[in-house]
């Protein structure tokens, strides 16, 4: 499969027919979608060709590149439902800032990818479109919540994809589908137009098949946005750094190694040896506070979720029910009818942790832990340039396996939520294959160290090779 970084150039030099390229992708979609269910919406061929014609004229760095977008990122001409029945039929009146940036660079948005409802989930099963199947193992999950975006890339249904990452939502799917993903430094990518789940934790995040493509997409979408108060006023490019192993100390964190599947461990330690053979210094360290990352993360995420989802009462936002009497009854019935059980659980628990009398014990305490975790990591980064860890303690679970007990599903995020709590960048890439499953590893670095993470990942990618995409 052609790399996205080459598409616009090849098209420009007449070495690639962009329409053939589009059709090739649509063929794959036709072949794989019935089995994988990764798209919530695919634009019709006529409209896509029209879009392609217009976008080629832009001669941007993504001219001719086909991008899949997670269904919680607002597009003014396509449905944006966040995989919720609450928003079925909703077409936003505006584009997310990242969409404007993609269009500006000449990209074609091919469709919206399936996900967990409102990004709440780690398996892409909580969705009215039906679960996303992992192209590597059709009765397994593709991870979540951006499972659709990961799966689409794995089978070649787009050149690049956008996801969103609140607690690992692009990294888990990347690990499970053999693709690469970056959760950027908080505030480097605009959230304007991202249907919010947990504002203080999440970032729209690039996903790709190679590190170069990932860097290209990240550099396209990043940047200060006057419409998002939480974007940082930094304007810089993030090229792929050439990392000097002699000057790079890497930490393995004991707290992120607990209860990890043996196959995953094997690939992980292989990668460590490989890095050591390159001359990197790697130490095992312990950060006690990370033991509380997961509950602290979920308390904060649910509190914010409960607040963000209050707007769906059927009046301006959210679908309406016919049989009801009075505003509050109509709101409660619509919310009861159209939200899924995971969403309801989080709304209730979010309200619980914010309630007077409980907020000190839960919400405020979690934010204090957040400080502790952020500061502990900042201290670690004085001595180490990066952290390496597994992404998930387990191989992709079978579909349906995790649905019963919510906490069982939450533990899938145990290694990824720390980066969201601390606001630091985290990159996931495939590092090998075990019994037919691609296995990911995770890089974390201090804030704004994206270039370094790209560089580190390139070293591994050069050794391991791009995980062969599925045919």
């Amino acid at each position: 499969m052609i790399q996205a970084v080459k598409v616009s150039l090849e098209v420009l030099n007449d070495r690639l027919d962009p329409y053939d390229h589009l059709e090739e992708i649509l063929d794959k979609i036709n072949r794989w979608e019935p089995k994988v269910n990764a798209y919530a919406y695919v634009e019709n061929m006529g409209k896509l060709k029209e879009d392609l014609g217009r976008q080629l004229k832009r001669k941007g760095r993504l001219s001719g590149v086909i991008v899949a977008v997670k269904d919680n990122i607002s597009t003014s001409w396509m449905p944006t439902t966040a995989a919720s029945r609450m928003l079925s039929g909703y077409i936003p009146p505006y584009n997310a800032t990242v969409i404007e940036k993609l269009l500006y660079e000449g990209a074609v948005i091919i469709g919206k990818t399936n996900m967990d409802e409102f990004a709440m989930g780690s398996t892409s099963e909580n969705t009215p479109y039906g679960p996303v199947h992992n192209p590597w193992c059709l009765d397994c999950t593709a991870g979540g919540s951006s499972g659709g975006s990961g799966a689409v890339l794995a089978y070649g249904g787009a050149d690049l994809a956008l996801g969103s990452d609140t607690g690992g939502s692009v990294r888990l799917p990347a690990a499970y589908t053999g693709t690469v993903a970056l959760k950027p430094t908080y505030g480097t990518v605009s959230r304007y137009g991202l249907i919010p789940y947990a504002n203080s934790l999440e970032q729209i995040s690039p996903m790709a098949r190679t590190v170069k493509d990932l860097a290209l997409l990240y550099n396209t979408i990043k940047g200060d946005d006057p419409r998002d108060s939480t974007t940082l006023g930094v304007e810089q490019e993030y090229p792929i750094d050439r990392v000097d192993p002699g000057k790079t100390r890497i930490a393995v964190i004991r707290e992120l190694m607990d209860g990890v599947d043996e196959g995953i461990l094997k690939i992980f330690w292989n990668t460590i040896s490989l890095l050591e053979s390159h001359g990197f210094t790697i130490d095992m360290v312990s950060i006690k506070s990370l033991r509380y990352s997961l509950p602290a993360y979920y308390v904060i995420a649910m509190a914010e979720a409960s607040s963000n989802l209050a707007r769906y009462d059927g009046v301006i936002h959210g679908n309406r029910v016919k049989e009801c009497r009075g505003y509050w009854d109509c709101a409660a019935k619509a919310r009861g009818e159209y939200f899924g059980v995971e969403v309801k659980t989080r709304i209730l628990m979010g309200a619980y942790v914010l309630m007077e009398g409980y907020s000190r014990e839960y919400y405020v305490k979690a934010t204090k832990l957040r400080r502790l975790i952020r500061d502990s990591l900042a201290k670690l980064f004085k001595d180490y340039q990066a952290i390496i860890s597994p992404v998930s303690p387990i191989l992709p679970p079978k579909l349906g396996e995790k649905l019963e007990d919510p906490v069982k599903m939450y533990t899938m995020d145990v290694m990824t939520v720390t980066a969201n709590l601390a606001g630091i960048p985290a990159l996931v890439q495939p590092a090998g294959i075990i019994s037919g499953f691609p296995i990911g590893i995770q890089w974390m670095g201090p804030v704004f160290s994206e270039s370094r993470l790209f560089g580190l990942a390139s070293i591994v990618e050069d050794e391991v090779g791009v995980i062969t995409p599925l045919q």
Partner: protein
Amino acid sequence: MARKVTIGLEIHVQITGAKTKLFCNCPVDYRDKPPNTNVCPVCMGFPGALPVVNRKAIELAVTASKSLNCEIPEWLIFTRKHYFYPDLPKNYQITQYKTVAGAPVCLGGRLDYIDPKDWSIHSVGLDRINIEEDPGKAVYEKGGIIGSRVVLVDYNRSGVGLLEIVTRPELHDARQARIAVENLLLTLWYLGITDPRLPGAFRVDANISVEGGGGRVELKNIGSLIEVERGLRYEILRQTKIVDAGGKIARETRHWDTVKGVSKATRSKEEETDYMYFPDPDLPPLRVTRSMLVKAEAALEFTPLKLWSDMNRYGIDKGLAWSIIRELDLAKTFRTALSIYRNPHLIAWMLGNVVKGLRDKKGLEYVPPAVDIAYLAELLDRNIVHREMVKFVILPKAMETKESVKRIMEYEGKLPRGDALEKAVEKVLIEESKAVNDLLRGRKQAFNYLIGRVMRKLDGKGDPREIAEILRRKLNGLI
């Protein structure tokens, strides 16, 4: 029986001094626009749209806080307050709150106000001021808020910046409460924060308790100064009657019905609401910058209380002073006219007595520009016109026709017309060739001498400034 009454007020004032809403670029001026045309994804609460703070609104809020002697924190923090209501697009309001890490723009503070009954000055303590967003406007159909089947909502107002000013329960009668609000609005008007004359620019809620009654009642929906006094009087009387009869007052919220002039209980189950406050993750804390404080400080040069003490110092009659202070355009004209020509008494008389009188009696809104008022004061001082002429001829004409005072004076024969002036100047230039030569050689005094000669030719009716201008023109810029 007279019982001690305790009143605390919560005054919501729209920040109409800003051109845009608090968190989006929609215009603040929503009045007279077709429903739902003054909206955008942010103020309609569309998923994914994000608030960005309007700096001007913050500057005005800081100015208000300074003027009310508040403690202003270094960082402002916005908080989400959650409740479900059809006029609230996100079902939370972005506001400020003291707890859960909140930091309102003003803590503590004091409102000083003038009581025009005896010109005494009083104070009421402030609890805090929050900056927050206005909700949309709900229109109830047949049956009103009690019985309407549906509610029609216009979100044009949604997101307009509000200051929620909360006083301590330190007021003790309805009239006093009304005067405090009136003074407050006047101050905010002077500072360019709000225009209280705009319909809906402010709303007042009052907490009222009567000694021996037990609970306190929150009276909502008071939309004008007269209603403040009327509503409070009604509620105090209602509670007093109940207590006198041996009853108790339940803690509740009541709705002031302006038309019927009564207060009505709204919802009886007024349980403790939990708004689930927490800091808005979309809005990082905002630093109150030095430049904001400097701007605020500069604005405080012109406030009703400051003007009041200045006017008192000039010895202006207090009633006259108050009638000027109460109307911002008169007050501004007073200040400017005084900076041009320093006779505070004449200027105050013209504005507070003549102009204000004509405004009240004839509904004339136009105020002649400050230069004209200053000019008239000078003419009065120089006995070129007398007060009766100013009061019954010149100012009424100026206000009716919006003509300049000079023009009116010319029509009335009180001033030589422009061509007469020109002729007089020409004559003097010929007659006084020696003075002209002196002037051209650099003797500056000769200029004033020439003006004096022209004035004499016009029997003292000319305007020296105008004569000087003509002289300069005639001398072709040689001087």
